[in-house]
C-alpha cells in the first residue's frame, strides 16, 4: 500500500487516515462488501490530483467519502482539519459523471442554483453567473434549456454551476466519461484553465490514463476491490500546461508507468488470474 502523503511542502486540505468503506450485505447473514480501503491520502492546497483504477475499485466511493455523501466505516476523512463523517462540508463542489443539469431550468438558472442559499447581493450573483457563462463558453446559450444542448455543453453547465459557488475543493467524478476523445482533450484544457484561475484544489476520478497523465500534478493508482492506493505518480508538469503535452515523451512515460501499475489490477478486476508483464 502506498501512503498518499505529498512529498513536497504544502498544507493538507483533505486528509484520509485508515479509511475503509464496507457496504452492508443485501441479505442477512451474507458478508458485507469491502469496497475500499484502507486508504491514507493527503491532498495539498491547490493541487490537481487524479485517481485511476480498474472498474469497480471504489473510485467513486472514495470521492463520495470526501464529498460527505457517504460515511467511512473505519478511519477519518477531514477537510481543512475538520472531520467530514457524512456531513457535506462548505466549500466543496462536485461534478458528477451523469448529467446533473436540471431539465426544467434554463442554463442561467441552472448555474444560479447553488447561489440562492449563499445570500449574495444580486449584482454579485449576476457577476458570478456572467463570469461562469463566459468561462464555459455558454454565453450564447444562457436562456437555453439543457435539452437543447449537447452532452458536453450540459456537462459544462454543471461545471459552471459548481464554479460559481467558488469552492475551495472541486471533486470531478469522471466528468468527461460520456464525451468523445477530441472533446475530452478540449474539456481538459478548460478544466486546467479554470483550475489556474480559481486556485482551487481539484480531485479528479477518471478511468482514462491519458486524461489523468495530462491533467494532474499527482496521480493515485488504485488496486482492484477493495480499492487501495498502490502507487502515486508525480507528473512534474508546469502549471501552465495544456493538451499539447500529449506530444511530449514524458507524457508517454507517465502513461506507461500508470498502465504498468494498473495492468495486473485490471486483470484481477475482470476475475482472471494475473500475469505480470
Amino acid at each position, binding site marked *: 500500500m502506498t501512503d498518499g502523503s505529498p512529498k513536497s511542502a504544502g498544507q493538507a486540505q483533505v486528509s484520509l487516515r485508515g479509511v475503509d468503506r464496507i457496504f452492508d450485505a443485501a441479505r442477512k447473514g451474507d458478508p458485507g462488501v469491502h469496497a475500499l480501503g484502507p486508504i491514507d491520502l493527503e491532498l495539498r492546497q491547490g493541487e490537481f490530483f487524479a485517481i485511476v483504477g480498474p472498474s469497480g475499485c471504489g473510485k467513486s466511493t472514495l470521492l463520495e467519502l470526501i464529498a460527505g455523501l457517504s460515511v467511512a466505516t473505519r478511519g477519518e476523512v477531514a477537510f481543512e482539519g475538520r472531520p467530514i463523517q457524512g456531513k457535506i462540508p462548505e466549500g466543496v463542489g462536485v461534478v458528477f459523471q451523469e448529467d446533473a443539469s436540471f431539465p*426544467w431550468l434554463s442554463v442561467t438558472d441552472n448555474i444560479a442554483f447553488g447561489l440562492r*442559499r449563499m445570500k449574495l447581493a444580486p449584482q454579485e450573483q449576476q457577476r458570478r453567473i456572467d463570469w461562469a457563462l463566459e468561462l464555459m463558453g455558454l454565453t450564447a446559450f444562457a436562456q437555453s434549456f439543457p435539452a437543447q444542448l449537447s452532452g458536453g455543453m450540459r456537462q459544462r453547465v454543471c461545471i459552471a454551476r459548481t464554479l460559481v459557488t467558488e469552492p475551495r475543493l472541486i471533486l470531478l467524478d469522471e466528468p468527461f466519461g460520456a464525451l468523445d476523445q477530441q472533446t475530452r482533450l478540449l474539456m481538459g484544457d478548460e478544466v486546467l484553465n479554470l483550475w489556474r484561475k480559481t486556485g482551487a484544489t481539484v480531485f479528479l476520478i477518471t478511468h482514462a490514463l491519458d486524461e489523468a497523465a495530462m491533467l494532474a500534478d499527482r496521480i493515485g493508482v488504485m488496486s482492484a476491490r477493495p480499492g487501495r492506493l498502490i502507487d502515486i505518480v508525480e507528473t512534474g508538469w508546469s502549471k501552465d500546461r495544456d493538451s499539447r503535452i500529449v506530444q511530449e515523451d514524458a507524457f508517454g512515460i507517465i502513461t506507461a508507468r500508470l498502465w504498468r501499475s494498473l495492468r495486473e489490477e485490471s486483470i484481477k478486476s475482470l476475475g482472471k488470474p494475473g500475469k505480470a508483464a
Partner: protein
Amino acid sequence: MRPAVICRIALLVGLVAMIEVLCLTGVIDHITMQPPHRIAIDLLAILASGKLNGAIAKTMGNAALAFGLALVIGVAGAIPLHRFRPVREMLDPLFATYYAIPIFAFYPLLIILFGLGDAPQIFIGAMLGIVAVIVNTLNGLDRVPGVLLKTARVNQMGPVETAWRVTLPYATPYILTGAKLAVAYSFIGIIGAEFIMSRGGMGYEISFAYTNFDNATMYPLIVLILLVSVAVNTLLARWEKRLMVRRGLQ
C-alpha cells in the same frame, strides 16, 4: 395544423353535424334531444339571463375547491409516502383498489359527518381525485435521477428545500397527469353528489330539468359542464406538453 388535429376536429364536427341532421329529420325526436344549434342558443340564453348563475357558480366553485384539495393533499401526501418506504408498501395495494370503492354509497355517512351543506359534495370530489394525484406524483418522484438528489445534498439542502426545488419540479409533468384526472374526478364527484341530494348546483338543475322534460335547460347545462371540463383539461395538457418539449421528451 397537424393532420391528426385536423382529423380530430373533423370527427367532432361530423358527429355534431350527424346529430343535427338526425334531430332535424325527426330520427331523434325533440323530446329525447334537441338539435345542437338549439342547445347552443339555449345555453347562450341561460348565460345571458343569469337565472342559473348561482347554480353554475356553486358547482364550479365546489369543483375548483375539490380539485385544489385533491392536488394539495395529493402532492403533500405523496412526498412523505415516497420517503417512508414501509408506509408506501402498506398503502400501494389500497391505492390500486381504491377506485373499486363506490364512494357515493358512503353519502349518508358523509351527511352525518359533515352535515347537509356543500361539505360532503366537496369531500367526495376531493376524495375521488386525491389518489390519482398521489399515484402520479409518486410515479414522478420515483423517476428523479439520484444524481440530482446528490446535487441537492452537495448544495446543503434539507428535505423540504430538496422537495421544493428539485424533486417536485422534476415530477411536475407527472403531477399534471394526476391533476388532469383530478379535474375530471372533481366534476364527477360534485355533479354526482348534487344529483343525489343537493338543493342547488348544476347537477341538481340537470336532475330537476330531466324530471320535468325541460330539455331547454338540461342539455345546455350538460354541454356547459363538458366544455368547462374539456377546456381545463386542455389547458393542463398544453402545459404538460410544453414542459415535456422543454425537457426534450417530446
